[in-house]
C-alpha cells in the first residue's frame, strides 16, 4: 500500500497572531512552526498502518524552503520520503492543484490530509484533490481501518458520528480521533538521525494560479473588560443575560 500524507506547515497553536506589511502578511517573527495538528493525527495513523500492515508512506508539502524543517520532522516520525513543491502556498486551490498534479503522475492508494489547516482554515485541500482526481473522499475522519482493500471509517457529524465503508483509492480529511493525542510521536534521536539520510525531493510547481487572494488581515477588536458578578447574586447575572445581552 502506498500512502501520501499532505503536510501543512503552520504556526504552533499557542502562537501570537500578528501581521506586517500594512496587515497584508502574517508576522513570522518569533513564531514556531509545526506540522498542522490535523495532519499530524493522519501521519501518526499512517505510521500505524505502515508498522502493522506494511505501507510506504510519503509526505508532501507545498511551500518554500522554510517548511523543510517540518518535513524533516515528518521523516523523523517515520515517513519514508518527503516531497516539497517549491512554491508559496497562496491558497487552498493552488495547493490542491499542485498535489493533484503530482498524484496524477505518482498514484497512491490512500491520501491523507487534515480536515483543515489551523492557520487559514480553508478546509478544502483534500476535498478539492478528490474532486480534481475523482477519488472517493471522507472528511472529519475520526477512525480509519483497512482490511483487504476494504476501508471502514468514522466521520464526525453534527451531534454524533457515522460509520462508512468504502474502498481504495481514497482521500481522507483527518482530525483528532484518528489516533489519540497521547499516541502522537515525538521524534527520537534515532528517528532524527535516520531522517537525515531519507530523500527530501524538491519539485518545481505546476503551472497554476491561485483563484483567491487575501487583501488584508484584521485582529479582533479589543474586548471590553469582563463584568464580574458576585456568586451570591445570580439574579443579577440572569438579569444581565436577559436585558443587556439579550440572550435568554
Amino acid at each position: 500500500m502506498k500512502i501520501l500524507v499532505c503536510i501543512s506547515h503552520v504556526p504552533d497553536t499557542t502562537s501570537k497572531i500578528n501581521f506586517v506589511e500594512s496587515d497584508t502578511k502574517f508576522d513570522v517573527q518569533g513564531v514556531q512552526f509545526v506540522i498542522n495538528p490535523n495532519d499530524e493525527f493522519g501521519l501518526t495513523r499512517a505510521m500505524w498502518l505502515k508498522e502493522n500492515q506494511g505501507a510506504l508512506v510519503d509526505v508532501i508539502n507545498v511551500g518554500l524552503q522554510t517548511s523543510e524543517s517540518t518535513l524533516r520532522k515528518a521523516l523523523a516520525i517515520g515517513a519514508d520520503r518527503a516531497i516539497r513543491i517549491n512554491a508559496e502556498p497562496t491558497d487552498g486551490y493552488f495547493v490542491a492543484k499542485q498535489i493533484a498534479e503530482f498524484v496524477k503522475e505518482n498514484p497512491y492508494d490512500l491520501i491523507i490530509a487534515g480536515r483543515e489547516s489551523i492557520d487559514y482554515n480553508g478546509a478544502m485541500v483534500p476535498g478539492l484533490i478528490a474532486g480534481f482526481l475523482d477519488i472517493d473522499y471522507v472528511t472529519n475522519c475520526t477512525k480509519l481501518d483497512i482490511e483487504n482493500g476494504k476501508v471502514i471509517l468514522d466521520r464526525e457529524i453534527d451531534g454524533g458520528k457515522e460509520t462508512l465503508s468504502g474502498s481504495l483509492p481514497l482521500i481522507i480529511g483527518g482530525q483528532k480521533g484518528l489516533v489519540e493525542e497521547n499516541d502522537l510521536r515525538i521524534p527520537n534521536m534515532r528517528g532524527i538521525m535516520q531522517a537525515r539520510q531519507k530523500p527530501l525531493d524538491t519539485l518545481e510547481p505546476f503551472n497554476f494560479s491561485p483563484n483567491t487572494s487575501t487583501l488584508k488581515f484584521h485582529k479582533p477588536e479589543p474586548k471590553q473588560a469582563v463584568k464580574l458578578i458576585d456568586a451570591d447574586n445570580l439574579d443579577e447575572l440572569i438579569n444581565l443575560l436577559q436585558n443587556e445581552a439579550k440572550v435568554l
Partner: protein
Amino acid sequence: MAVITYIESSNGKIKKSGFELASYASELAKQMNSSAIAVTINCSNIKEIGKYGIEKVLKINNDLLNEFNAKLYSDVIVQASNNFDCNRIVLSSSSDSKYLAPLVAAKLEASYLNNVISLPSNLNPLTVKRTAFTNKAFSDCCSSSAKIIIGLSNNSFGLVENSVSVIEEDFKVNLVNSNLSVKSTEKSSGKVSIADADIVVSAGRGMKGPENWNLIEDLANTLGAATACSKPVSDMGWRPHSEHVGQTGKPVATNLYIAIGISGAIQHLAGINSSKIKVVINNDPEAPFFKAADYGIVGDAFEVVPKLNEKLKEFKLQNS
C-alpha cells in the same frame, strides 16, 4: 447570474441554520440585482423559506438521497447550479456542507471562500470578510473567478425576514451510485448538537471528574443547551471527543457560551471566540478566560452551578 443556496434539512424539516442561509442568499441576490434559488433535498416544509426572501425553491426527491452522501449531494448542487446558470453558491458551515463544498468547487472550477461572516463589501472582484487563524483574526479575501462558493459561518449573519410567495419546482437529477456507503449513524438523541445550539454549556477540568457532569447536564437541560468540554476533559476520556471544542476540536459560534471550570487556554478560546456572549464560572480569579469573557463569576462551580440552575428554572417558569 443568479444566486443558489443549498438549504439543509433533517428528517424532512429545514434546519435552523437554513433560514439564516436563505436570508444571506436573498440579501446577496438583492445586492447583485439578481434573484436567489434554494435547493432542497427530500424536504417537506418548503414554504417557510419564502419568509426569508427566496422566491424559487427546487424540490429534489430521490431515494438515493435519503442518507447524506457528499458526492451525490454535490452532484445535485452542481446540476442545479448549471441548469439555472448560477455563479454564486451559498453554503452553510455544517459538517455536511463543509464536506461537499470543495467537491462542488472542483466540478464547477469555482473558488471557495469559507468561514465568511458578512455580505460582500465589493462585488467585483467579490470581496468578503472571513475568519482566519481559528478565530484569532479576520481577513478580507477576494476572488475574480466566474463562479464563487461562499461558505457562511454559522450564526454570523442572522435572520432577515422578507416574506415572498414561493414558487416550488420539481427538479430531476441524474445520479450515479457512490462507492461509499453509510453503515450506521450514532446520534445523541433528544440532545441539541453543538452546531445547532443557541446556548452551549461547556465544562473543564475544574469539574474534577466525569461523575460530576450531571450538574452540567442539568444546567444544559434547563437552558435547552448543548453540552461541550475542554480538550483535557476529552483527552482523559471524561467526555466523548464529539464534545471537545477548541482549536483542534469543534468550533462554536453560539449566542451564549457558558464556560465552567475551564481556565481558557489560547487554543480553547480560539475555538469559541465567535460566540456572541461568554460567561465564565471559575474559582481562580486569575484564569485567563476572564479576559475573554463578557460576564464572570469567581466562585466554586459545585456551589454556583446548582444555584444558577435553580434560579434559571424559576426564570423559565415565569417567562414561559
